[in-house]
């Protein structure tokens, strides 16, 4: 992938993406990074230096819970899942995001009567 295909995520968006991936089911950090890359069709690559501080912050805010389980390779990994608080937060933030993109889209694509 060429560098120019990548872009910086707006502030706070990474949290939303991480939580969306975790909402599918308990998952460890490495798989979260891979899932985001696949789901974005390779457009997003989450660096470890952004991923882990975000996971630890979300866990500290009790939006995520974690436990150690054997991974697909048999080695123990730290699996994250959403807490009830995390689910509510994800729902609210997803709605906010949709409203925001709708509004920004209206302005970027639209014309107003009286403005040519």
């Amino acid at each position, binding site marked *: 992938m060429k560098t120019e295909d990548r872009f910086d995520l707006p502030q706070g968006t990474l949290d939303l993406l991480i939580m969306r991936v975790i909402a599918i089911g308990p998952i*460890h*950090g*490495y798989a979260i*990074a891979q899932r985001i890359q696949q789901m974005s069709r390779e457009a997003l690559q989450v*660096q*470890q*230096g952004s991923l*882990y*501080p*975000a*996971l*630890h*912050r979300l*866990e*500290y805010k009790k939006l995520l819970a974690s436990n*150690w389980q054997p*991974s697909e*390779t048999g*080695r*123990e*990994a*730290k699996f994250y899942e959403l807490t009830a608080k995390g689910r509510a937060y994800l729902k609210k933030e997803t709605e906010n995001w949709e409203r925001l993109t709708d509004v920004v889209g209206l302005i970027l694509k639209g014309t107003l009567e009286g403005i040519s």
Partner: protein
Amino acid sequence: MSWLQRLFARKRMEIDLDKELHFHFEAQVADKVRSGIPESEARRLTRLEFGGMEQIKEDCRERRGAAPVLVLSYPAWQSDFAGDPTVVGSTVYVETHPLTVVGIMPPGFFGDRIVERPPDLWTPLSNEPSINGVGTSLWPQGDEDTAWLYLLGRVRPQTSVPALQAKLSVILRQWMFAHVKFTAHGGAAKIPRQHVFFLPEGAASRHCSGKPARACEC
């Protein structure tokens, strides 16, 4: 939580953090190996992609709201805290910044050199900018040549100290030759006489009258 529980909780968190990042590292290496990259190369690439493992850990600790830590010197523990063992795990303020005491150094440890007023405490280098603010030495503004950090290390038991001294002396001289402040005003002629000396911990001042060991001319 008591200080002991806090200390154990912190230790547990450190072990988990290390284990978690290593799991990611190994999984990334394994994926590269599966795609046909030889293991040594896969490890090298993964290390590059990871960047500083310690920096990631420090960012994680910060996001968990963990207060930065410090270790007290034995004399400071005796004089400022009357030797109270419950100080471990408590918060002390260093220039208004809260730091958690995680330990006390043994008596007789004074850091890299014996100076008249030895340090009262040690804290990880990464805390320096938050304590010193804009005056930070870690990210100097303008003066790229700033050299202020003294290193203290352990050598492996089989290491030949004279050979290591010779090797580091060469590196020191190369570094000095590359900087005008050492070569100017006839300084270049003196550089070949510069040596690095390895001395037992705290013994540097006796040998070099307080100058850092690496820059002493003997």
